[in-house]
């Protein structure tokens, strides 16, 4: 049984899906990720789907579930690298994946996660440091 590797880079878990996943592999990835988020205490998950030439409703649902699970575990999930043909197909299929944050590539995905974390800090700092908030 194939397993999709989960890499830890700093505060982020990076998953690069390189194989045509069977449904079982997808479910296993979902479980692996939940465990790794808790074990590592990471606050960001990047799922790179650049290599996927299709995303069907099952994989789409898995991505949504991972996003929801990670949210519960206080981690932000960003799906990156969706191909144009895949995006067009998903729209036609009727899957809008509203709950998922997306970015064009891994770099932008990391920026997005960093920005999301900064927002939280700004909010926390807000009361103590009124000047910083005023300039934003």
């Amino acid at each position, binding site marked *: 049984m194939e397993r999709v590797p989960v890499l830890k880079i700093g505060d982020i878990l990076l998953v690069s899906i390189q194989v045509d996943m069977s449904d079982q592999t997808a479910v296993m990835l979902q479980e692996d990720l939940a465990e790794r988020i808790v074990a590592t205490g990471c606050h960001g998950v990047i799922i790179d789907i650049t290599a996927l030439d299709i995303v069907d409703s099952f994989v789409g649902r898995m991505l949504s579930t991972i996003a929801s699970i990670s949210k519960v575990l206080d981690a932000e999930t960003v799906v990156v690298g*969706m191909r144009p043909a895949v*995006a067009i197909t998903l729209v036609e299929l009727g899957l809008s994946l509203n709950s998922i944050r*997306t970015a*064009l590539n891994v770099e*932008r995905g990391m920026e997005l996660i960093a920005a999301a974390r900064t927002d939280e800090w700004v909010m926390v700092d807000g009361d103590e440091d009124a000047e910083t908030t005023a*300039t934003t």
Partner: protein
Amino acid sequence: MALSAEESGWLARLLTKNAEQLIRRWTELVASSLRGRLSHAELARQVQELHRSMIGAVENGLTDLDSEQGGELRAVLAELSRGRARQGFSASETAISVFALKDVLLELMEEDQNAGNLRDFVAFSALIDQMGLFTFESFVRTRESLIADQAEQLLELSTPVVKIWEGVVAVPLVGTLDSARAQVVMERLLQTLVDTGSPYAIIDITGVPAVDTQVAQHILKTVVAARLMGADCIISGIRPQIAQTIVALGIEFGDIATKASLADALRHVLRLTGVDNARRHQRRES
């Protein structure tokens, strides 16, 4: 079969014997039909080539244009019609270059009673008809391929995706959008987002005179697809009529950003990215 072997031989002799006179008269007749739109030298060259390849064909015992012996003659005819089609001559103007040979042959046969009888002329005439039809078909084929090429070029020309700022691409749409074109635009825009790593796209429809439900749907789908890929689309230049159509058709544009002009859209994007940059800047400082 247009000609018998015997008639073919007759035609060869007729064409060779009076070659000079024949070419001169033939060129004259064609020239008058084209009214000086082709240089005389060019025309004479074409007629000579046609004459030469005809002689070649009938000397090889040509009985039918579609046969093997007609190969070279067909090639010359095809070349002639291609040239005429490209130069913008009409189909009749092209076919007449071939049919003029009938008049020339008739004149020759009237002058020289030994040249052949009516039956021979009808046979020659049948061959020339075949040549004329072939010319016509080549002409139409060339025109068709010209039209197909142009349609393709138009599609390429009319859907430029340009990078207008770091991280911002724009598609200025001009002309009527049909479903096929909308699809090409959609795919190209999304691909450019990936290639340039741009998180913002501006779809400017100032040059689009009207949209129907299908086209509006295509634009909407593009926006949703771009979002799935992690990019934002802004639609600019919506004309009043189009705005009315969109509302009248009950198309939901939802939370898609729309701006009056391309400039406004760019300003909007820069403000968005400016916020990001300021934030990042701030973080570095603290």
